[in-house]
């Protein structure tokens, strides 16, 4: 602990990044009141508090309002194509353990076009922090229903209301083998959002954080009831999970002590329909990470390449004198 602290102190002394060091020179282009802003702020605070070197931080996204986030971070950003943020992030990480990788993805980006990658990213459990900005609508393309849209949601493609129950990203994620960290946050409780992101960041493996995000442009009033009535938020606490500040605890009295290793209860919490659970649903730090498993014993060097090529060529070489060299030449 004290060792960690001093290491941390050293880094702080060395670099001492301020919040503004994580703000790019582009002003965010989100609508007034958009929940993405709070998420961006929480991320920047996290980077500052963790004193992450901007050049070692990579934010990967797909396409959508939320996926614009990397443009507003002073870090390496990869604003890719719709639905493919996760495989890109996996590629970034696979041979660059030195980089901290964040993934920002929308509900359409992640659970619709990107659904296969989402399932498999959970299973790979690579070391990265995934933020699902779930505004339950397609924002950027101007209001089409997403898989997480509430039933009856009117939109441009469902003018008479969407007909299906919404997909629950939490229950699906919890059903995937190797799932190691699943949490839920909301954009309108910034303290908890921050705390959850921090836990997610410190988790080794893929931390999946679904963030209920307000979209005043297309989903006005969607979360008003919850914003107004703190008792509709069920806060999950635990010694190994979130620990609430007295202020938060005072406002959000609907609390449940939940052991993040209890998968059964996590599934039950994930399925709660009338309240919004906030906190860490599941956290198993023992699940192995694909990037560790595939790290390889040794780094690639020219000498290694030469040796392996020689070995392989040896197997198929016809030597001029038919005297195959027994040992390496």
């Amino acid at each position, binding site marked *: 602990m004290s060792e960690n602290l001093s290491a941390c102190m050293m880094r702080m002394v060395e670099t001492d990044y301020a919040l503004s060091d994580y703000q790019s020179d582009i002003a965010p282009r989100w609508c007034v009141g958009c929940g993405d802003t709070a998420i961006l702020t929480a991320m920047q605070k996290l980077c500052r508090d963790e004193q992450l070197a901007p050049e070692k931080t*990579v934010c990967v996204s797909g396409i959508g309002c939320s996926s614009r986030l990397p443009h507003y971070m002073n870090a390496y950003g990869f604003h890719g194509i719709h639905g493919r943020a996760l495989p890109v992030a996996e590629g970034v990480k696979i041979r660059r353990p030195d*980089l901290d990788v964040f993934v920002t993805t929308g509900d359409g980006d992640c659970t619709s076009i990107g659904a296969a990658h989402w399932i498999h990213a959970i299973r790979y459990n690579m070391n990265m922090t995934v933020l699902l900005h779930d505004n339950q609508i397609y924002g950027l393309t101007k209001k089409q229903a997403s898989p997480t849209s509430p039933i009856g949601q009117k939109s441009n493609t469902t003018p008479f209301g969407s007909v299906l129950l919404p997909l629950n990203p939490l229950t699906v994620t919890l059903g995937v083998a190797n799932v190691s960290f699943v949490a839920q946050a909301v954009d309108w409780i910034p303290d908890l959002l921050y705390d959850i992101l921090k836990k997610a960041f410190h988790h080794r493996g893929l931390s999946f954080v679904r963030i209920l995000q307000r979209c005043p442009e297309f989903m006005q009033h969607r979360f008003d009831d919850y914003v107004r009535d703190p008792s509709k938020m069920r806060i999950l606490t635990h010694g190994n999970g979130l620990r609430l500040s007295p202020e938060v605890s005072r406002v959000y009295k609907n609390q449940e002590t939940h052991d993040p290793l209890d998968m059964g209860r996590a599934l039950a919490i994930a399925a709660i329909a009338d309240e919004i659970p906030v906190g860490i649903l599941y956290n198993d730090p023992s699940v192995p990470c694909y990037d560790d498993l595939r790290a390889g014993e040794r780094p690639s060097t020219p000498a290694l390449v030469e040796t392996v090529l020689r070995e392989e060529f040896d197997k198929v070489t016809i030597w001029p004198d038919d005297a195959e060299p027994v040992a390496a030449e």
Partner: protein
Amino acid sequence: MDNKAEQAVIERQPSKPRPKPAVVLSEHIVEIVSDSGEGAQRCGQSFGAIAARSGNGIWTVEIIPAEIQPPHRSVAGASGNRVRFASGPVTNGGNEADLVVAFNEQVLLSRLHADEIKPGGIILMESKWRNDRNAGIAASYAQVVEEIRTRGFRVYEVPMEVECLKLVPDPRKGKNMFVLGMLCGIYSLDEGLARAQVARIFGKKDQKIIDANIELLDAGRSWAETNLDLRFTVPAKRATEAQVVMNGNTALALGVVASGMEVCAMYPITPATSTSHYLSNIFEKVGCVVHQAEDEIAACAFAIGASYAGKCAVTITSGPGLSLKQEALGLAVMAEIPLVVIDVQRGGPSTGLPTKVEQGDLMAAIFGGHGDAPKVVMAPSTIEDCFYSVITARKIAETFNMVVMLLSDASLATAQQPFPRPSFREDWLAPPVNQSPVPEDAKPYDWDPRTGIATRFIPGQPNGMHCLTGLAHDRDSHVAYDPEINEEGLLNRSRKLAALQTTLRLPPLCGGDSGEMLLIGWGSTLGAIEEAVGILRAQGIAASSLHLKFLQPMASGIGEVMKRFTHVMSIENNWNDPLSDPLITPENRRYSSLALLLRSRYLVDIDCWGNARGQPLKPTAIVAAVRSKLGKE
């Protein structure tokens, strides 16, 4: 390989008197076909290896059944190998086979139907079917033998299983080694080399198995020497340099290792996958990784991510996978992320002919994505080329920050050919990932006004922070929709092709510098085309050929070359509309891909010949096409 075992074998070599003098041939094509699982593949490969080790030029072609588990004794189930071997180098699978060993009459029919056997050719048949308990089978066998005799083939019935039964309890298992011995006898191949090959095959098994198989080998040879009037020799000359023998997919895999790429992301698909199989076995040893993604799109995105992070990556696929990757490739083009894409082409469209050859993906490689997405497209044309092309591709990708597509195909994938053993050069490899600070005023897309090339910033480089995007963007990588900025990006991405183009040299012509007919090809057809040119020239026709390695951009000078010939024709293993069809006119004809590209570029009336029959083009078919075009049928 167990060297001890091999040693032992060589020592036990008996010194029999050499058989009577053989007919000297400059080359022969041998095929061995059986049901899947009867070992004809191994027999053929071993025969090729022995010939190669003797110093013959070889080219082996896999005969692959269409189905995973085809029914026994079925035409669709023919499995085996073609070995073309010669005194000099061999560059392709050649024309019809001179000699075929068939384990049953149905698999033979498959080769006959495909017109793969030379009229009057030699056919060695397993004779056991003649007396099969199943009358239908016996009748079918007798009928086929009768028919092919009538058609003028030289048929020899060989009691393969009967002979093997004398040595082993399960003759079906040992038959292929018996046949191998028989062939070594027929072609006067060295006994020592043959036995060493058997020892190599079974090197990991125990000595008993090796011994049993060598007995079968010897038995085959004796049987042939005693019972057949076939004695050939194809004089061989041992190469003075070390040679390696491998197929194209292995060469690609070794090329990936040699290029210094550290990440290969793929999704299984025939015929590309065996490249990844080979790579999976060795890549971890050099600290690298083969990632089998959940699908082709993820594989491509994964490779893009790795390459963005400084570890140039390759993604390997075949046709359907290429189609799926188109959107992700557009991102790599737009964001200027280096990427090597290997497409081992197969018969299309759709699932098409998964195991068969076609050069059907050239247009998709060049034009497949929406919008203007310039990529480099190259095609290896020999096994050796498969190896070196990957190294070149990686270099171009990283020099120009471009997508480089490498179009191999199912023919190169499984064909084996010896080539000089490469000697490792450190400059094949990628330099270490640049992590030095970026100069203060540098921009991530600081396009060179002449070449369009920008120095990219790699995560970890201080001061280099920027947000890459697939949207139109300015030099700062900021999203921008201004007409000028969009145009600037398009221009610079396109310019890079022109910049690369100025560095390309046209490959030398095969044949003469001018004449009646210029054939132009690309990719795996090289050997067949050049062989055809040789034949045509021997027939007094002034034909030459030009074989393109770069399909986009193309080296300059092609127009000049074409002017020196009366006719120009592309030879491609892909579809073109036959003018003989009543509805096809010169105006609506759909041309072969390269022909279309060259016609457009040079406005020369380039004809095209070729087909998409799932088979490599044959030299004699090319010869016939040229003669027909010249009215000299």
